[in-house]
């Protein structure tokens, strides 16, 4: 068995985050956070009262306190407000890139698994090529063409994440193929559309959902690392990665400018991972 055929992401059952008080505290917290995040993305004014773009230079570098719970940044803008308004950017990029990644992954995995030996080898090569081309490089090159912004970021992160999911789905589809559902269904006289509907889609849907849920956190991190390097949306956009990058010069005087965007990113990642794990366990137990 070649190492390169193994799955980078496992779909087997994994241990739950277990605490003495209750099995599902982790999940509850994760869902709460995600609800907050989605609310922040859709209706930020409900959660934050200030103007994320209005500067107040004379209030710059205010430490966290009553008036500004998370402090102010280098232009005097309230950190809490900026983080809330930045949630939209992050979610758009996170969800956009995961959708792109999964589309690309599917469009490679399906022909690869079911198209014959030549197609299989071609797809394997394509994955090799995509894997060896780091997403950062792609993002840099795309930004050179399109200039920095949300769109090149989504494309870069989406294409960068695609091979990982592609390999996973590829493996999953290979398993289905080897398990013989398809032959059995064909021998029973079912049409390809029927096979697609009854066997492929349900079997693909679950791993896709899990991968999607867990992937959003991962893509948000990748996107914020790219905007950290200056490839994100231009000012005055409140993007977590950019806020982190701009704040790092002041870490000795005003640690909160760099710290809190990082916390937001980490919490998002934890929440989506917890959700993904829960879905995975749920589907595993319900399908067996």
């Amino acid at each position, binding site marked *: 068995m070649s190492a390169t055929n193994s799955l980078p992401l496992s779909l087997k059952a994994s241990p739950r985050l277990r605490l003495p008080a209750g099995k599902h505290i982790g999940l509850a917290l994760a869902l709460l956070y995600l609800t907050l995040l989605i609310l922040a993305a859709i209706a930020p004014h409900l959660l934050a009262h200030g103007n994320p773009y209005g500067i107040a230079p*004379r209030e710059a570098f205010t430490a966290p306190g009553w008036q500004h719970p998370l402090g102010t940044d280098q232009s005097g803008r309230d950190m809490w407000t900026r983080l809330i308004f930045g949630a939209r950017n992050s979610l758009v990029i996170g969800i956009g890139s995961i959708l792109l990644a999964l589309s690309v992954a599917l469009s490679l995995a399906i022909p690869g698994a079911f198209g014959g030996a030549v197609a299989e080898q071609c797809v394997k090569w394509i994955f090799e090529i995509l894997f060896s081309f780091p997403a950062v490089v792609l993002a840099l090159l795309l930004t050179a063409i399109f200039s920095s912004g949300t769109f090149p970021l989504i494309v870069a992160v989406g294409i960068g994440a695609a091979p990982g999911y592609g390999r996973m789905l590829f493996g999953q589809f290979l398993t289905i193929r080897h398990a013989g559902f398809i032959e059995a269904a064909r021998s029973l006289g079912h049409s390809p559309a029927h096979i697609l509907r009854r066997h492929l889609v349900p079997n693909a849907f679950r791993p896709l959902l899990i991968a999607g849920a867990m992937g959003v956190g991962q893509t948000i991190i990748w996107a914020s690392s790219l905007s950290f390097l200056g490839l994100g949306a*231009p000012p005055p956009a409140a993007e977590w990665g950019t806020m982190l990058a*701009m704040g790092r*010069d002041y870490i000795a005087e005003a640690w909160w400018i760099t710290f809190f965007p990082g916390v937001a990113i980490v919490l998002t990642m934890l929440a989506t991972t917890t959700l993904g794990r829960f879905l995975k366990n749920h589907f595993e137990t319900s399908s067996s």
Partner: protein
Amino acid sequence: MLARNTATHTCKAVFSSALLAALCLPLAACHKNKHARNATSPISGGTLIYATDREPVCLDPHVQGDMPQVFVAQQYLDSLVSMDKAGSIHPWLASSWDISPDGLAYTFHLRSDVTFTDGTPFTAEAVKANLDHMANPATQSSTAGGYIRQYHSTEIVDAHTAIIHLSRPYAAFLEVLAQGFLGIESPKALARPRDLNCQAPVGSGPFRIVRWDRQNRILFERNPAYHWAPSYALHNGPAYLNRIEWRFIPEPSARFAALQAAEVDAIDTLPPEAQTPAQHNADLWLLMADRPGNPTNGTLNTRRAPFNDARVREAFLRSADIEGALGSVFFHHYRRAGGPLTPTTPFYSPDFEHAADYNPQRANILLDQAGWSAKDADGIRTKEGRRLTVHIPLRSSLSNSERTLWEQVQATARETGFDVLLENADDTSVNAREGQWDYDVRIGYWNTNTADVLRIVFSSEFLDAAGISGHHQNESGFSNSYFDRIVNEALLTTDTEQRRNLYYQAQKIASAAFLQITTFPQTTRLAISKRVHDIRLEPALNVTTLYDAWVEQ
């Protein structure tokens, strides 16, 4: 190689590994050696580690020519003449000179005891080779070449006499010759291919370049034969330091932390947020000076809308709260420069400092007068269906502090109805756009020791770049024949009062045309360990010179 640092760090590294494994229990670090501070006279020997933020692209300052290059050049190159703080010119490699009555021929009598570090003797040949090199388009010299556009040729009379012929009188010629950009390199070295000379150029200065490790450091070694120091130096003879390690640490907080941790002995471009801690640190001393020239600014492009209208330009200048920015991200350590010249430039006049202060009410009135009275749903002014949009390309190499300053300008300008778009792009794309005049504001500065900078930055002579896409020093597109006449007249006379009068008028015209948002003067800001003495700033451009520097052992 650097025994001091390696020893303390191996000790620290092993220790910190153990510390990390023990989950961050605070324990005493390795003891830092405190040096006895009783030495007051220079000690020969030792290594100085100097950390700077930007790495030059080429070590030969004739090629292109930016500030990182001239900082390096000051250590290994000498110039024909030097300038003192008062602006007077003194001999250096040239021991005396005569200027012809028509101002077109400068006869330099050169020192006969100078050799370059590759053994080549310094003769009139060298002067000719250097000036020709700067003037040669193949060298791609934007700074040095730009300064000697009036250069015609060099005539070699004998081994130590050279006559430089100019095509037009140029009162600022000696001033520019004092700059490190026009330092004299070995003609034998200059004859090599450009890329080779970029790697390890050769001069006659107090140090010579040993090696350049990209993205890491440049190593210099003392030139033992040196005894032709300039008049502003504190001593003559070889330099005190054995070696210089010129390190590149682009991250501002890391650079200052390296100084505080005694990893490096001196840093330049002290970040504004680090200045107060540095002042309170008893182990450090600060050395700062304004650089003369055109201050850091955003130059408005007058060749296209909306800034082809002077009222809109004035309105934009009055919509920018520069003081607020200087108070926030610059921690009140940078002063405001309001006029077209920095206060340390010769013939600077303070009358233009407040020509365009922040005044949003006036800005609103001006915009209404200019016809931009309608506003769309976002609050942006419109005129005949067009939005009042301002495009500002931002280079990726721009510092975070300056970036924040322009974000703040964006925010306050929005309140008066400007839609400012800050467009991040890589340096090459931004250069391309600027070459094609595809911008509304261009961020830049120009350091030079003469008021002639006004001619370079604002006269129509510098509007074109050889006709093909390329850098044009006049970024505003300003073209005023009366202004051109004044700044050129100022070059024709050496009478100080006349020059003062002419440059006053030039500043007045430039200021009244509202061509630039000037922010702060360019400054040299060094923070130095108290173990290091006599790091000084060369008076022409206020560039670091390590010739007199010595370290306590």
